[in-house]
């Protein structure tokens, strides 16, 4: 890292316009995260049409900042309403709510805020230290390795943490097939356009994402029959009181959560939700007082609050270095990078290192300003939670419409959000996860290119996929992940006899 590049990155980030974008997207992220039913992914999807009009660095800064904030502020309705603001807070929502009932709302929220920021910084440091080195290695990769990397990423999306692997597979395949639409394939042949000229260049990513993650969530709100929740407490004291004590009491929990979160983030296909569930479970396992978990004990919040924010930074490592997203948020962000002609991959470290360091700086900045802004949000929490959602939701719908219209100034974008919104709503109602589909769409083109190139290079001999050393290791890890569920299923079956309803 040369000083000149670092200085250039500083200039890119500490520009009044970029700082303003960061501040606005931070407030936006905090607000969206704090409203139950609006997730961090939705915050990203709503931001994307606006970032379309920005230069690359502020565009990415907006996404990075908004998601980091939304993941923290998802803890607020968790503690006060017992409804996680974002799925990443779900793991410890009950715990935080129990603390609120005991009159310790400020400790739950303070721990959530402070340890989120520390976890986020931890993940960022790992990212800063490892991604340039990883990019060096990635430079040696050829189409075979890239093919396996994509498959590994997609396998992770399907096999980790999904209730129905089969349905996740289907969702993924549909995503990959959507990526096949249009003219942009190695052969330059027009595919699946049904005679519509709008489809010639493929399905536009932004309206698709807005449909899948914003419109479908709106439909879910509209069809949600749960009674309106009650706010458990009105008064929240000083959230920073006693935090030093917690830091001294649970240093290992903090470190473990941050490290686990980063690793889960790096693993393609699993993001913040997964990180917080796993680290909550881990915290309970390693705790000296596991019996207190679930009764309003702060230890789990320390650990998984750090984990879900550190996973955000972790997810960016494969995204920047290989162009392979670690979760649906980075999938959206990668789509934005492509639109900005800032194609992720190892070459970006050579061609535009200042942009990469600018992203690193944004991560650090976002996690630092999270503390004061988060404090402010907690102060205003009871007001934010009273925002009339029946007014807010139609406004969000209007934003979706205008945002998707603005991508190429035609109602075709609105047609896409309608289609993908309704389809993903129905899919989710029937237990098909949507995240694998978006990963499939983003990675489809890359997968096909590397597949076709490799097949041409090898004269159609698929064995070549296994002969190069790195490719072989990647192939083995992929196959292990693919066979893992089959293996555990077979093991269960041998051990316990035939199961009445084998899980797929």
């Amino acid at each position, binding site marked *: 890292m040369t000083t000149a590049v670092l200085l250039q990155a500083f200039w890119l980030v500490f520009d009044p316009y970029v700082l303003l974008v960061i501040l606005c997207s931070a407030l936006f992220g905090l607000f969206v995260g704090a409203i139950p039913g609006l997730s961090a992914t939705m915050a990203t999807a709503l931001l994307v049409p*606006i970032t379309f*009009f920005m230069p690359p660095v502020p565009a990415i800064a907006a996404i990075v900042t908004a998601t980091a904030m939304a993941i923290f502020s998802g803890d607020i309705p968790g503690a006060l309403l017992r409804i996680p603001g974002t799925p990443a807070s779900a793991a410890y929502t009950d715990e935080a709510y129990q603390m609120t009932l005991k009159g310790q709302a400020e400790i739950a929220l303070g721990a959530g805020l402070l340890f989120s920021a520390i976890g986020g910084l931890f993940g960022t440091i790992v990212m800063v230290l490892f991604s340039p080195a990883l990019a060096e290695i990635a430079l040696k990769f050829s189409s075979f390795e890239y093919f396996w990397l994509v498959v590994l990423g997609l396998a992770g999306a399907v096999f980790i943490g999904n209730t129905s692997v*089969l*349905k996740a*597979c*289907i969702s993924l*395949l*549909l995503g*990959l*097939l959507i990526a*096949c639409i249009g003219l942009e*394939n*190695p*052969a*330059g*042949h027009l*595919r*699946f356009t049904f005679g519509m000229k709008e489809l010639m260049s493929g399905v536009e990513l932004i309206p698709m994402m807005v449909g899948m993650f914003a*419109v479908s969530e*709106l*439909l879910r709100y*509209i*069809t*949600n*029959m749960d009674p309106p929740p009650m706010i458990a407490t009105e008064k929240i004291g000083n959230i920073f009181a006693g935090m030093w004590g917690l830091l001294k009491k649970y240093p290992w929990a903090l470190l473990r959560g941050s490290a686990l979160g980063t690793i889960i983030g790096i693993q393609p296909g699993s993001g913040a939700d997964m990180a917080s569930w796993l680290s909550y479970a881990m915290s309970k396992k390693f705790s000296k007082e596991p019996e207190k978990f679930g009764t309003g004990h702060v230890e789990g919040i320390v650990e998984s609050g750090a984990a879900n924010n550190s996973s955000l930074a972790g997810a960016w490592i494969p995204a920047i270095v290989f162009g392979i997203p670690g979760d649906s948020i980075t999938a959206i962000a990668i789509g934005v990078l492509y639109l900005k002609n800032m194609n992720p991959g190892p070459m970006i470290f050579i061609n535009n290192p200042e942009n990469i360091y600018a992203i690193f700086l944004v991560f650090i900045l976002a996690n630092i300003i999270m503390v004061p802004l988060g404090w402010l949000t907690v102060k205003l929490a009871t007001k934010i939670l009273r925002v*009339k959602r*029946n*007014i807010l*939701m*139609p*406004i969000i*719908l*209007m*934003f979706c*419409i*205008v945002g998707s*219209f*603005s991508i190429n*100034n035609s*109602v075709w974008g*609105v*047609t896409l*959000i*309608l289609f993908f*919104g*309704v389809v993903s709503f*129905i899919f989710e*109602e*029937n237990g098909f996860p949507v995240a694998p589909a978006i990963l499939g769409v983003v990675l489809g083109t890359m*997968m*096909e290119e590397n*597949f*076709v190139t490799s*097949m*041409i290079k090898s*004269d*159609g001999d698929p064995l070549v996929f296994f002969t190069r050393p790195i490719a072989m290791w990647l192939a083995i890890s992929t196959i292990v992940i693919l066979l893992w569920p089959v293996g555990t299923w077979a093991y269960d079956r041998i051990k316990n006899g035939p199961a009445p*309803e084998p899980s*797929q």
Partner: protein
Amino acid sequence: MKINDTLSGLALLALSLLILYTVSSYPVIPGQNIGPGAFPGLLAGLLALCSVLLIRKGLKAKKHEDWVVIGGWVKSWFHLRNFLITVGCLFFYIYLSDYLGFIICGTILLAVMFAALEVRAKAILPIALIVTLVIHFIFYKGLRVPLPWGLLMPIQW
């Protein structure tokens, strides 16, 4: 609304067969063993396999569930109506925004949605109009998105 996996599986199977059929007519590139149909063909093949597994799973579950379970929000008129209104609003925008223009179209759309979600009657129109104008200002003036003027063309600003 919960659809039995057998039905979803059949639909997906039909889709994958359709793709395989379409792909079979794609040209082969001379001198190469892999054409534009190879990759989608491979995906469709895998999708067909998954669909068959899903149908099998659905048939097993069929013993204790119906083909289609109409439950939850579909049964509640209020929620079903609002679902249809939301989808209808998007159709309305797609077909009429060019003619009516963004401001008229947006105000009507918001007003309908507010009314459906039971916002106070007196507040509906003012909020709908103000929000539309603010969004118009941000996107038309700020981001220079050419939102259609439609009927308001003569008085555009």
